[in-house]
């Protein structure tokens, strides 16, 4: 065994279960119960990384989530997780971690040269230096990101799985320290449904790190008893190893639960993490407090730690972090660390207290234990670079802004500093809770809240154990009593056995040296982002008065730790530099998540094929077997085209087009939206929604309709058929169906509730087969005996019911291809059977299945628009040349008034035209810009763009549709489409290229 800093006994680790792990490629051994941080310290590994900007050597500073320095890259390849604090990784077998932000190793770092240039890397350095020329930013950025950065993201898909959970407890208690446990107990005893959540593997919170006693026994015995009692309550849920990441409106709490102590992967058939959405009636925040460091010169050297972290490592993990420890404090609490180190047999060089004559009980005990207490003094320098070798101390002056006398050097390798504690007000603040300032110890406390949440214990600024127990107990009782729940036999509140009086803190936001701050060593406020006191003062001098601006300018409090240790001292430094109070300056906004969260947890199971549902038509399987390629339309998979053998797309589409033009083709049109409209006011409703007239449409007839937004812009189109008296079937575009349905409902419910109209979506109830081509009628006549297909009986734009291949069907004679065409609706369950029957019967007619691409070509040949392709929300029916469908007789319809707005009447609006390339073989790219006059290079005045463009096999030349300014008056003009490598001249023509008279349609 080689764990030089491991104590021979004590701690909550299991020395009978050694664990091998790897750090920076070297093998070490720790114990079950360790974190990576405690195991590294046990092995004497203090130097674990480099800082973000200057690449200064950095060591483990804390024992918790607030850790700014000891970030590691955990595991490799697809499972790698960047920037995990070593303090948050429970040790497991074969754990493999490495330092971030240093190469080739933390002790020899080639980028550390940045540290020598720190005078030219002040706050805002990037903004100031790399501003000019702007075009060069792309080169600078590459270099900066490589030089200053943290860990690496995995480059492969996440191999682990994540679940989502929902819960609706009466009370959620966040944090299972003394306050949280007391709250959960008093709430749980009323029978309330309670969730208790804690980030650690074990309950107890700060008690895990302490040698406190409750009710005369070790505190952890009380914790164990509380856990036993809570676990026996049927309505109580305890979630350990679970981070509360955010508190949102109306008491929604987000939690990320680690399901195994191996945090990097799925384990034992369980998902890696679960993301909980908890909607609680009451929220109790017992989130504790985070110790803030004293900001002294070179306070970032490896070995500079928080005072409470020292006793956490001693008491919880059986590790003395160094060989000779110094405590540097402004309060009594840090003396506990000195006493605990001493009791464990570790060497405590001294306690340096910035207060004159500290005299609290804990101070007395330290002196009685033989610890040297040096009062009214300050650390003015740190000797050592990769590790602390010694410190230099001097006497403070009365104001605390300078030092006097001669320096004394003290040998040590660890300095545990404490500047007091900051309540963890993050969750309180997330949903808009305010903070109030307590001047005497310089802390922000939870103030008014907009939600039903309350803070208890040190999260509420009550830092002593008895207050935590009292406030927790009260919060649990109060929360449940407001819900009408009470505990009949109320036990007494647990008693902290060793409650001692403590002297007030002395608030000094940074510790002076013999020289002005910044001229002797660096006083780091934010070690992760390398922001020191002079950086914040410089920002203030340069005019950054807002704390939010200063944050962004200096990078203070950003990145993974979000300034959990140094933000409050930094805001106080800014306040002093601005000559105002800390509460006037305020804090930067606390935003979720509280600590970095795996994106996989948010995604849950909605990844891969579950990311978005796929809608398939009843004939999908047939298309698949026929080798169709797919086009996504909304969530639908539609056949795009059906290549034969090694046909290219152009060849396949040309073949399909010609089959429809000369024989017969079949399209799966199931995806068209279908809305069943019934009620005595249905015709009136259609008349208000569509631009044309609907009151006289007779049963058996169909009509094309255009729907506008109230702004006059085309929103959707489709054919609506009158099925019977007061009964219609509307079709919509495939992608627009849900939107149109919602739109119609909105008008009916909110504006015209007097109309008796009922809407039902029936898109999925019917399969739709579209037969198109000169042979369509002959083919269909072979499949039906009860439908008269003669043009006299069954003209264009009418429909009939009957049977097709023995299946009850509605047959609509409508056309989007320009050919004689029938759309057959049958119940979805019969869609595939009918498709097969039609294909069989159609063989002798040369039937060819065709996809959406062919449909697009055929309709473009006819100049039919596609909503969303020819329109983009800025196009009116007039722009499309569709004046014929806009009723001038109807007094009103949705969008009508907008069509007469001045802007709508301008002659230079973009209008729909056809384009013919001068070279008939040239096919324009869709989306290409159009100019009237070319210039050698851009900018050129753009007068429109190409909306649709295809090779027309029927016409043997390319065709295109375009929106061109004033296009309807430019027929015959030559315009130009400038591309990267050439300029394509085109003639403006009518958008109808094929069968202008429409004889094929009606024939």
């Amino acid at each position, binding site marked *: 065994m080689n764990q030089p800093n491991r104590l021979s006994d004590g701690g909550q680790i299991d020395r009978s279960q050694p664990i091998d792990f790897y750090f920076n490629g070297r093998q070490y051994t720790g114990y079950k119960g360790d974190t990576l941080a405690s195991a590294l310290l046990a092995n004497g590994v203090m130097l674990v990384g480099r800082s973000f900007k200057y690449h200064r050597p950095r060591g483990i500073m804390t024992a918790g989530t607030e850790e700014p320095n000891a970030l590691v890259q955990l595991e490799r390849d697809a499972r790698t997780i960047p920037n995990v604090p070593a303090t948050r990784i429970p040790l497991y077998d074969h754990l493999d971690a490495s330092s971030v932000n240093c190469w080739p190793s933390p002790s020899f770092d080639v980028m550390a040269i940045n540290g020598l240039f720190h005078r030219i890397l002040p706050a805002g350095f990037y903004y100031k230096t790399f501003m000019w020329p702007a075009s060069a930013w792309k080169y600078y950025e590459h270099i900066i990101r490589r030089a200053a950065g943290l860990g690496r993201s995995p480059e492969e898909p996440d191999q682990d799985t994540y679940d989502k959970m929902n819960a609706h407890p009466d009370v959620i208690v966040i944090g299972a320290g003394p306050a949280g446990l007391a709250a959960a107990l008093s709430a749980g005893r009323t029978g309330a449904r309670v969730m208790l959540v804690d980030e650690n593997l074990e309950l107890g919170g700060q008690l895990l790190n302490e040698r406190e006693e409750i009710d005369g026994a070790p505190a952890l015995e009380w914790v164990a008893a509380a856990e036993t009692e809570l676990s026996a309550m049927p309505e109580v849920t305890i979630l350990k190893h679970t981070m509360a990441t955010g508190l949102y409106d109306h008491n929604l709490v987000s939690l990320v639960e680690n399901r195994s102590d191996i945090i990097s992967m799925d384990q034992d058939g369980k998902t890696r993490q679960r993301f909980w959405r908890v*909607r609680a009636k009451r929220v109790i925040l017992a989130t504790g407090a985070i110790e803030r460091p004293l900001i002294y010169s070179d306070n970032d050297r490896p070995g500079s730690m928080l005072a409470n972290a020292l006793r956490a490592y001693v008491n919880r993990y059986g590790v003395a972090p160094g060989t000779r420890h110094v405590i540097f404090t402004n309060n009594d609490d840090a003396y506990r660390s000195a006493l605990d180190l001493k009791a464990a047999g570790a060497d405590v060089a001294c306690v340096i207290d910035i207060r004159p004559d500290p005299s609290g009980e804990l101070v007395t005990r330290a002196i009685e234990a033989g610890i040297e207490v040096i009062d009214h003094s300050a650390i003015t320098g740190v000797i050592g670079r990769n590790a602390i070798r010694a410190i230099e101390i001097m006497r403070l002056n009365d104001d605390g802004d300078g030092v006097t006398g001669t320096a004394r050097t003290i040998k040590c390798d660890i300095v545990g500093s404490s500047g007091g504690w900051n309540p963890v007000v993050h969750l309180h603040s997330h949903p808009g809770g305010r903070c109030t300032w307590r001047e005497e110890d310089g802390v922000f406390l939870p103030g008014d809240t907009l939600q039903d949440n309350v803070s208890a214990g040190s999260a509420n600024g009550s830092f002593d154990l008895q207050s935590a127990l009292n406030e927790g107990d009260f919060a649990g009782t109060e929360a449940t009593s407001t819900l009408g729940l009470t505990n009949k036999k109320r036990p007494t509140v647990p008693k902290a056995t060793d409650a001692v009086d403590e002297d007030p803190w002395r608030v000094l936001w940074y510790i002076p040296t013999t020289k002005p701050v910044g001229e002797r060593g660096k006083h780091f406020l934010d070690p992760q982002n390398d922001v020191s006191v002079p950086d914040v003062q410089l920002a203030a001098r340069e005019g950054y008065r807002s704390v939010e601006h200063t944050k962004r300018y200096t990078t203070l409090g950003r990145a993974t730790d979000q300034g959990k240790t140094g933000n409050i001292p930094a805001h106080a430094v800014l306040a002093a530099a601005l000559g105002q109070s800390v509460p006037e300056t305020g804090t930067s906004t606390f935003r979720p998540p509280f600590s970095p969260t795996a994106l996989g947890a948010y995604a849950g199971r909605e990844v891969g094929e579950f990311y978005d549902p796929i809608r398939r038509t009843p004939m999908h399987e047939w298309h698949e077997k026929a080798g169709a390629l797919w086009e996504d339309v909304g969530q639908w998979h539609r056949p795009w085209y059906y290549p034969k053998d090694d046909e290219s797309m152009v060849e396949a589409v040309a073949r399909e087009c010609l089959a429809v033009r000369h024989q017969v083709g079949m399209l799966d049109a199931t995806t068209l939206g279908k809305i069943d409209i019934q009620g005595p006011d249905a015709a009136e409703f259609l008349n208000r929604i569509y631009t044309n007239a609907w009151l006289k449409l007779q049963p058996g007839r169909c009509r094309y309709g255009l729907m506008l937004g109230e*702004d006059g812009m085309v929103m959707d189109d489709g054919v609506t058929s009158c099925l019977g008296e007061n009964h219609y079937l509307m079709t919509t575009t495939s992608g627009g169906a849900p939107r149109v349905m919602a739109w119609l*409902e909105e008008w009916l419910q909110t504006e015209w509730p007097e109309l008796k109209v009922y809407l039902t979506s029936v898109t999925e109830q019917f399969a739709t087969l579209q037969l198109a081509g000169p042979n369509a009628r002959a083919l269909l006549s072979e499949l039906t005996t009860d439908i008269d297909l003669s043009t006299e009986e069954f003209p264009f734009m009418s429909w009939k019911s009957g049977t097709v291949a023995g299946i009850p069907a509605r047959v609509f004679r409508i056309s989007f291809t320009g050919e004689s065409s029938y759309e057959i609706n049958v119940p979805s369950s019969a869609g595939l059977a009918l498709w097969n029957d039609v294909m069989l019967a159609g063989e002798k007619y040369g039937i060819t299945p065709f996809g959406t691409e062919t449909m697009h070509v055929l309709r473009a040949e006819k100049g039919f628009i596609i909503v969303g392709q020819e329109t983009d929300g800025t196009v009116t029916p007039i722009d499309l040349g569709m004046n014929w469908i806009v009723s001038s007789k109807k007094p009103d319809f949705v969008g009508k008034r907008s069509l007469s707005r001045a802007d709508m009447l301008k002659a230079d609006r973009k209008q729909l035209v056809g384009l013919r390339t001068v070279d008939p073989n040239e096919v324009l790219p869709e989306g290409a810009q159009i100019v009237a006059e070319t210039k050698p290079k851009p900018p050129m005045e753009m007068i429109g763009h190409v909306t649709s463009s295809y090779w027309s096999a029927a016409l043997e030349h390319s065709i295109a549709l375009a929106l061109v300014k004033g296009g309807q008056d430019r027929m015959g003009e030559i315009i130009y489409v400038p591309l990267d490598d050439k300029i394509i001249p085109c003639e403006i023509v009518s958008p109808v290229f094929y069968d202008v008279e429409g004889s094929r349609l009606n024939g």
Partner: protein
Amino acid sequence: MLLIECPWCGKRDETEFSYGHEAHIARPEDPAKLSDDEWADYLFMRKNPKGLHLERWAHSAGCRRWFNMARNTHTNQVMGVYKMGELPPKMDSGS
């Protein structure tokens, strides 16, 4: 995420609803009589208050019914929900 009480279905998460902007803006009886400015006002201009806001919501992933809600835009406190065509409940401004 808000917890919204649909008048028909009860309390549900905000993700089930879609927002329908300011409530109580009636479509003009005879749009043809309006000037362009008046029509633009109906079409585009909406209040954006800090505090009480009467607004429309649709329970689009639930019963698909529209309803009105009185909400404080600053605190997100919901002061009441009421059906289409009803007047808002009596309340203080909640600012």
